[in-house]
């Protein structure tokens, strides 16, 4: 399976706090009143991504750099299909794998093995594929006999390992990584690093959001600089990093 094409135009996101029925009702009255909603205090549209147009081709390793709050995570989540764009179009072809956090959706009362099936199925694999990969997944996670114990007995690290193991073995066409390779212990990081190499060798598409300039420079074929929801610069990793680092230094 080859990787795909991501074409995205004008992605804008709306951000709001909890709504209750009462608030909605009051808001309605407010709007109807003659001076209603003048200062826009009921709803502020926060555009996390503004007018992003981006095409990613198969085989590219795209690095996304930017300050905290610039929209990196939002961009990745939108590409993954977790968030829908408010405006514009998004087209993604092929299976997307997100490594943003692991072990979500684990049912604590069921065993690790059962959760592999559930989680794996959620992430898009068929039962047959999961059955084939089950041994590899268990081995990679190094959980041993614990795989048959209920997940609520696992430590946080064990849960993370199992989640990561499942996510890795999904074998997606596009891989989205969100600053995730920098957490975890040394052994974990080593494993994670080799994964990236494997993906590059297999000509899959990877999009990485990272704060590590070193990683972007070494691993990526292309980089974009995201600033306040817009793409400031798009091109050769070294050049982009140069510009980004320059801005950071200037800000100090």
């Amino acid at each position: 399976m080859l990787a795909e094409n991501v074409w995205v135009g004008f992605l804008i996101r709306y951000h709001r706090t909890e709504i209750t029925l009462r608030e909605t009702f009051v808001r309605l009255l407010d709007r109807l009143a003659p001076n209603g909603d003048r200062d826009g205090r009921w709803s502020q549209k926060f555009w996390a991504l503004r007018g992003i147009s981006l095409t990613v081709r198969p085989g590219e390793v795209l690095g996304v750099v930017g300050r905290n709050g610039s929209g990196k995570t939002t961009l990745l989540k939108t590409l993954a299909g977790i968030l829908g764009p408010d405006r514009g179009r998004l087209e993604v072809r092929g299976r997307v794998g997100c490594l943003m956090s692991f072990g979500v959706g684990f049912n604590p009362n069921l065993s690790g093995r059962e959760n592999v099936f559930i989680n794996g199925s959620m992430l898009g694999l068929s039962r047959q594929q999961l059955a084939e990969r089950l041994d590899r997944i268990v081995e990679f996670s190094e959980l041993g006999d614990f795989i048959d114990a209920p997940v609520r007995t696992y430590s946080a690290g064990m849960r993370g390992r199992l989640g990561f193991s499942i996510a890795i073995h999904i074998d997606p066409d596009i891989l989205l990584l969100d600053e995730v390779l920098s957490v975890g212990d040394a052994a974990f990081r080593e494993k994670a690093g080799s994964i990236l190499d494997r993906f590059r060798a297999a000509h899959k598409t990877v999009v990485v959001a990272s704060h590590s300039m070193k990683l972007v420079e070494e691993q990526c074929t292309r980089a974009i600089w995201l600033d306040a929801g817009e793409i400031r610069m798009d091109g050769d990793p070294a050049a982009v990093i140069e510009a980004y680092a320059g801005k950071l230094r200037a800000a100090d």
Partner: protein
Amino acid sequence: MLSRSQGLPAVVCAPTLAERLRELYARRETIRFLTGSYLKAGHRDKVLGHLWSLLDPLLFMLVYFLVFGVLFGLAGGGGRSLRFMLYILIAVLTWRFFQGAISQSANCIRANRGLIHEISFPKAILPVTVVLSRLYDFAWGLVVVVAMLLAAGVWPTIHYLWLPLLVALTLVFVQGAAFIVAYLGAFFADTTNVVDVALRLLFYTSPIFYYVRHKPGVPEHQVFLTEHATLHFWYMLNPITCLYECFRDALLWGQAPELRLLGCAAAFALLICLVGFAVFASGEGKFAKYV
């Protein structure tokens, strides 16, 4: 689409309803896994475990029988008690299916906020899983009902053939309502409160433990509401009422379900399912932002 010819699934924003349905069908394995996990997890730690699926409607039926049948005297006394128990049981079973599915759906999006924030999947899977896991209990409950009917000497008639259709209609109706409630529950935290009250109202205005139609062997004075034609009409417009009565016709009275009731239930079921799915689908892209 180019991607389909290459065998790759395409993810385009704002897919049509038909595409969403197809996606749901493609994810049926996930639905099966999730439903299984809900059921297993729900029963695993309990002493009586799976038995509760069967005991639940029976025990509730007994409670209502004692309170309304014996205490309030709605049963009619004597040999009619057993039939009254069966009468209640059928409705209680259907009601528990509906009520359980609705109250769990109201919360299903919020409860799974972690999942929604991290993985891209058709969120419709969540209310569908809730309803299917309740359907499982409902199906087993029906088996118990039939067993009890046989034990009471009410033999199966050809009208048992209506059962698959009735179960399907109930499923469609409950699923539609679940979609709507799940959608509302995602955006409004108050939904659970409103749903609780609405369920209470529906509970008392549907004939679980009282009669509303004239049937052989049921004393005239036990049947309610038949004097006021308009009230009776509006009362019977309730699809849940229609479903109860249809089930009772097929199982207990050994008759074909009254056609106008069947029609009413079918119309409501289809309508609410279509509307519910459309409404829920419109929210698919937004859930992750609000939850």
